[in-house]
């Protein structure tokens, strides 16, 4: 399976994602420069963490107009998987691939720590290899991770089983309904603030993120 990791100016978790895919999962990964219009026939697109365009204006606001985002939207429109992590989640919301927005953490501080995240559904291509209710140790590192959407949207996400991950125990950033990750209506675009790609190597603390990647391997035909 081939993963394409989009690199914006200011992305800084692109190499972590590469390491997770190539060394953790044992699959193929390529970097896709944001000015390209070629997804190079990848099966899965990863929008990685970082500070694309320095978070100027709003996190993700300018990155969504990068040339490659046209192809990413078409890829998503075909039902192909997009994994949007942290800043990638912010970009995906700004681009309209996912509903809602990520606002400033309620406590104002940038939070970089390992948190507990609960798997709410295994009915997605991203979580098939987990158990429902499983609690994962996964790092977060963000200043704008407070998920916000209007009540109607939140009810729809809950009603349709589209809240994939919730913070377990403490809610670090004030996210609505403890939301840490959601999928789009078709289920092929996942956005999450925690960093599964930084939890794929026991030497740095946790391998709880690896099953997200292996889920894709088992559920997506390459």
């Amino acid at each position, binding site marked *: 399976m081939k993963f394409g990791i989009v690199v914006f100016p200011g992305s800084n978790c692109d190499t972590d994602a590469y390491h997770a895919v190539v060394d953790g999962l044992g699959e193929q990964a390529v970097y896709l420069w944001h000015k390209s219009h070629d997804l190079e026939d990848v099966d899965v697109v990863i929008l990685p963490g970082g500070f694309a365009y320095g978070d100027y*204006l709003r996190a993700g*606001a300018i990155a969504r107009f990068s040339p490659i985002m046209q192809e990413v939207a078409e890829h998503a429109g075909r039902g192909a998987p997009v994994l949007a992590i942290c800043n990638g989640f912010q970009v995906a919301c700004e681009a309209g691939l996912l509903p*809602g*927005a990520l*606002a400033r953490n*309620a406590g104002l501080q940038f939070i970089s720590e390992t948190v507990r995240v609960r798997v709410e559904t295994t009915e997605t291509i991203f979580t098939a290899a987990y158990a429902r209710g499983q609690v994962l140790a996964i790092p977060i590192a963000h200043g704008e991770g407070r998920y*916000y*959407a209007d009540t109607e949207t939140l009810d729809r996400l809950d009603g349709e089983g589209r809240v994939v991950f919730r913070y377990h125990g403490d809610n670090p950033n004030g996210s609505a309904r403890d939301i840490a990750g959601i999928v789009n209506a078709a289920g092929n675009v996942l956005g999450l603030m925690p960093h599964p790609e930084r939890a794929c190597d026991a030497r740095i603390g946790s391998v709880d993120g690896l099953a997200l990647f292996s889920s894709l391997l088992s559920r997506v035909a390459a």
Partner: protein
Amino acid sequence: MTRYRVSVEIRPREGILDPQGRAVADALRTLGFGRVHDVHVGRYVVIEADAASPDAASADVDRMCQRLLANPVVEDYRITTIVPQVAPA
């Protein structure tokens, strides 16, 4: 075509938690400004652009706000001034 300087005020939407505004309000009260009731911190954007009329300039900036400058999910915006710029002599 005339060049206009258009100012836009963008702020967190009414009713949405604004932790930055709240922190500033707390600091102001700590400084002794006890009558401060509420503070909101947003962005102020100034755009210079050519347009046929003030209304056209305003309409252009309104579209800019909807597409990029503001995120309607969490922010409100308001065009505050539209000032024609005098061409240099």
